[in-house]
């Protein structure tokens, strides 16, 4: 890496070859090695009337969908999907589309600031030199063991850089957390795979290759793991075979967006999903003949049906459909795993797949391949591990904490006490792009660029059977006075000297990224490049590098069926007549609330915009004398929260549900002071894999007497007699 080739030089060289136009589209406008040119030779992105397109990676969640961003005269205009990227194949979700409202958001952190943990956002700018000095001093003045790094689920290159830094200087490895992974119960899923299959990793469920899908709470059409890839799978399930339309059954206590697309929605009692899976498994095993495998031997389908509140005929019907199918598939996920017995549920559903002989099969279950520059699967921290980290912060063992890409003050349940723990850390430095709750509680905010202004890469954890590394490059120059966090850390490490400087011997972020890509040079894949500069240019142009063929980790599940599963009933914390079901808003997810067009999107099932609601069954609402828009107080053992009622026809009478995503006390004008956060009423209860038992709470509901009219896209006329006059 001693000789740097300038971007212009590279283009000149490349223009000799045949692939000129293709290469032109591949280089970012903010490329680091730009030489001065006369005005008569304008760069390609400033031609009037012509759009330039850049490939990059979406940062709205960690699924690593590839994007092609249309830019015009240095402004990002429209997000389109990258057709080459194996995860999304040219498609995007609503959040990916609205990422531009994050880029051009009026409430970004525009300069490095000394926040000083003030309640209001500090706006007096610091210089970046002073900011780098603050970070360098934090490195020098603390023992490495007292430095803490808390990172989000994206981007991976920063995680690698911080991991390398921490390892070299003897600091604890960075803690990684994302609230989507908490609601997905990722730790439970991988622990179940480990217990049952002897291999840890992220299972991938091939919905597209299947012809009947039984989903036990998995909300795979919403925010689960890799929503665009799973939605494509769903489309293939329905229309992949023109002669046979795939069938889909969802077991879930509330009709989610995913359940609303199912042919059958079966509202079973929360916490009985694992038992139901075993019961159907037993019916299938008995019908197939031979000995019933040990995992299913002890379960009594009739008793389970009574316990789950479903008729035995429905379970028998599901078993019949499975017996007739070529590729039946069962998926565990969502709130079913966020129970005290979540690990049992995940194991039961995986055992059910073993019974159906589904591992390594089309329409079955794979272990997702590792990404190209990955040695092993790193799962994000579970809520239990975050609690341990919070204890460590409280004990004073963390003297300085760096936070990037995550907002735990908002995301973690209040009862875990993250905000209090943060207050006991002497110095907190945030790299937030937006003034979120955690950033405001920090001493400094040194804002990172927005994802569309950033270099980087993201590993594909699941969603495709091709091993994929999705690449990111800036599609526009930074709009504000922000700086890449990787660059700040590199500069600070070099300023701190000693071990720190040795740990990061890089000129800048791009230099570091190229060092991580070096191992892929000369490998067969989506493209082949003989040396690193060519590789890096193609990596930008294609939006990443992936293997051409499917490549999964082979599962050896020979003893999955012989294990007897520890059947555990779900325990519910607290008192109250209702089970409480928080779910991630399908349109906002965890960080969409500051994007105005995401707020204006109608929630798919309720059509509510710009607010939070509580879903209550019509009959229950009638008994409690509740109507639409009555504000109720939800009280759990951990806290209380208020939100207006939405009388929802498709939820169990003993369950109430509330979307997660609103209720910010900071995070810009579109998010702040809007709606309520269901995490406020969640308690400290975990399942055996350490994931939060977020669906294992009982709550009371109290009418407050206040009304708050929810803005809905649907008409209210005629709904439950509203607007129909007194006679109705």
């Amino acid at each position, binding site marked *: 890496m001693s000789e740097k080739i300038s971007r212009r030089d590279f283009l000149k060289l490349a223009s000799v070859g045949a692939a000129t136009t293709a290469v032109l589209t591949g280089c970012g406008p903010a490329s680091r090695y730009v030489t001065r040119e006369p005005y008569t030779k304008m760069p390609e992105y400033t031609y009037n009337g012509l759009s330039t397109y850049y490939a990059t990676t979406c940062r709205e969640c960690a699924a690593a969908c590839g994007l092609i961003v249309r830019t015009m005269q240095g402004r990002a205009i429209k997000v389109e999907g990258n057709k080459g990227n194996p995860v999304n194949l040219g498609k995007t979700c609503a959040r990916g589309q609205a990422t531009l409202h994050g880029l051009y958001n009026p409430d970004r952190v525009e300069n490095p600031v000394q926040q000083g943990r003030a309640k209001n956002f500090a706006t007096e700018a610091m210089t970046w030199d002073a900011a780098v000095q603050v970070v360098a001093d934090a490195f020098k003045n603390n023992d490495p063991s007292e430095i803490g790094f808390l990172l989000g689920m994206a981007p991976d290159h920063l995680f690698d850089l911080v991991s390398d830094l921490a390892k070299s200087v003897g600091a604890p490895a960075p803690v990684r957390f994302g609230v989507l992974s908490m609601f997905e119960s990722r730790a439970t899923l991988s622990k179940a795979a480990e217990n049952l299959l002897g291999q840890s990793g992220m299972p991938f469920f091939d919905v597209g290759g299947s012809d009947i899908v039984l989903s036990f709470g998995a909300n795979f059409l919403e925010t689960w793991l890799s929503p665009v890839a799973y939605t494509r799978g769903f489309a293939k399930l329905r229309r992949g075979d023109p002669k046979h339309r795939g069938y889909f059954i969802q077991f879930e206590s509330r009709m989610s967006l995913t359940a609303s697309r199912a042919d059958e929605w079966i509202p079973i009692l929360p916490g009985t999903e694992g038992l139901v899976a075993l019961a159907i498994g037993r019916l299938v095993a008995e019908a197939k003949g031979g000995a019933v495998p040990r995992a299913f031997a002890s379960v009594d389908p009739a008793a389970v049906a009574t316990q789950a509140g479903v008729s035995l005929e429905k379970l028998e019907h599901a078993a019949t459909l499975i017996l007739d199918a070529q590729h039946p598939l069962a998926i565990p996920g969502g709130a079913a795993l966020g129970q005290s017995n979540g690990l049992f549920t995940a194991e039961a559903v995986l055992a059910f797949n073993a019974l159906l002989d589904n591992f390594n099969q089309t329409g079955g279950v794979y272990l997702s391949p590792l990404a190209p520059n990955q040695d092993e699967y790193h799962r994000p921290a579970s809520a239990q591990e975050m609690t341990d980290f919070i204890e460590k912060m409280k004990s004073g063992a963390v003297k300085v904490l760096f936070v990037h890409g995550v907002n735990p003050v908002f995301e973690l349940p209040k009862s875990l006490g993250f905000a209090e723990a943060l207050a006991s850390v002497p110095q907190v430095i945030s790299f937030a792009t937006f003034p979120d709750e955690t950033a405001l509680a920090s001493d400094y905010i040194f804002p990172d660029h927005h994802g569309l202004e950033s270099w980087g890469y993201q590993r594909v954890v699941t969603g495709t059977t091709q091993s994929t590394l999705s690449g990111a490059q800036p599609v526009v120059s930074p709009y504000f006075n922000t700086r890449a966090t990787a660059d700040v850390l590199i500069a600070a490490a070099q300023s701190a000297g000693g071990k720190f400087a040795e740990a990061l011997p890089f000129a800048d972020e791009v230099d570091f990224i190229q060092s991580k890509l070096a191992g892929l040079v000369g490998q067969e894949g989506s493209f082949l490049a003989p040396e690193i500069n060519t590789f890096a240019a193609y990596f930008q142009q294609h939006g990443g590098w992936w293997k051409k063929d499917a490549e999964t980790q082979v599962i050896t599940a020979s003893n999955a069926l012989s294990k007897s599963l520890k059947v555990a009933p779900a325990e519910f914390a607290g008192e109250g007549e209702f089970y409480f079901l928080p779910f991630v808003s399908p349109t906002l997810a965890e960080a969409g609330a500051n994007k105005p067009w995401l707020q204006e999107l109608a929630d798919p099932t309720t059509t509510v915009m*710009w607010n939070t609601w509580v879903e209550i069954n019509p009959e229950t609402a009638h008994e409690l004398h509740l109507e639409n828009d009555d504000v109720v107080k939800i009280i759990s053992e951990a806290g209380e929260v208020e939100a207006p009622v939405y009388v929802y026809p498709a939820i169990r009478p003993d369950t109430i549900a509330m979307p997660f995503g609103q209720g910010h006390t900071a995070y810009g004008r579109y998010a702040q002071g809007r709606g309520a956060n269901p995490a406020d009423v969640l308690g400290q209860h975990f399942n055996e894999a350490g994931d939060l038992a977020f669906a294992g709470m009982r709550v009371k509901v109290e009418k407050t007497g206040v009304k708050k009219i929810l803005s809905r896209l649907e008409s209210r006329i005629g709904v439950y007699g509203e607007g129909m006059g007194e006679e109705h």
Partner: protein
Amino acid sequence: MTVDLNKLHAVGAIAEEAEGKWGMVIDQDLCTGCQACVAACAMENNIAFVGEEDAGYGRSMHWIRTERFWEGEYPEVRMTDYQPMLCQQCGKAPCEPVCPAFATVHSQAEKINLQVYNRCVGTRYCANNCPYQVRSFNWRDYQDSRIRPEITILANQFNPDVTVRRRGVMEKCTFCIQRIHKAQDKAKSEGREVEDGEFTTACAQACPASAITFGRIDHPESLVSQLARMPHTQHHLEELGTLPSVTYLKGA
């Protein structure tokens, strides 16, 4: 080229010349209601967001929305398929004859309903007469930075190919006419016809389930024509004689 569109079931075309007609097929069995189309449409077409209060008054400006209806009561309750609803680009459009300013007119070239913003005087007769309720009216200057200062930054994202609308103007889905024209110009400069699938509308491009297909319905071999000939097709409110250009596919 003369094609008998009645034989192709491209019903929306029978009231007019077929040549050049664009159409859409939406597979409701695939739609998951995820709103990607709505967000993509808003970003492509500079559609204003109106905020919570105005949205509550029904003033939100979605050019496409996903409708859903409930059937039955718990526990036998069922949600109907999501139904993406957008301007049906009617062959005989009820909105057209009622406009006193000739702001909503029929295009000869693309066979779609145009909305001429600088002719519109805001009588809202067209929205009143639209059976699909897909027209939205600019009740305020939502995108004027003198009224909403934050637009100064957000406006960086505006698509320069699409007009930013002012208060008092009606608007609706245009079948992304700017994309149609761009593709036609490109094809013309290269001396060829626009190929099927060469470009598509913003909603179809984003849709993760590929439920939306767009193309020429006067070309019998185009994908959209082939899909429109499938069984289980439906045209919404066709009993009104609107001759819609959007065909819906129902589940099996």
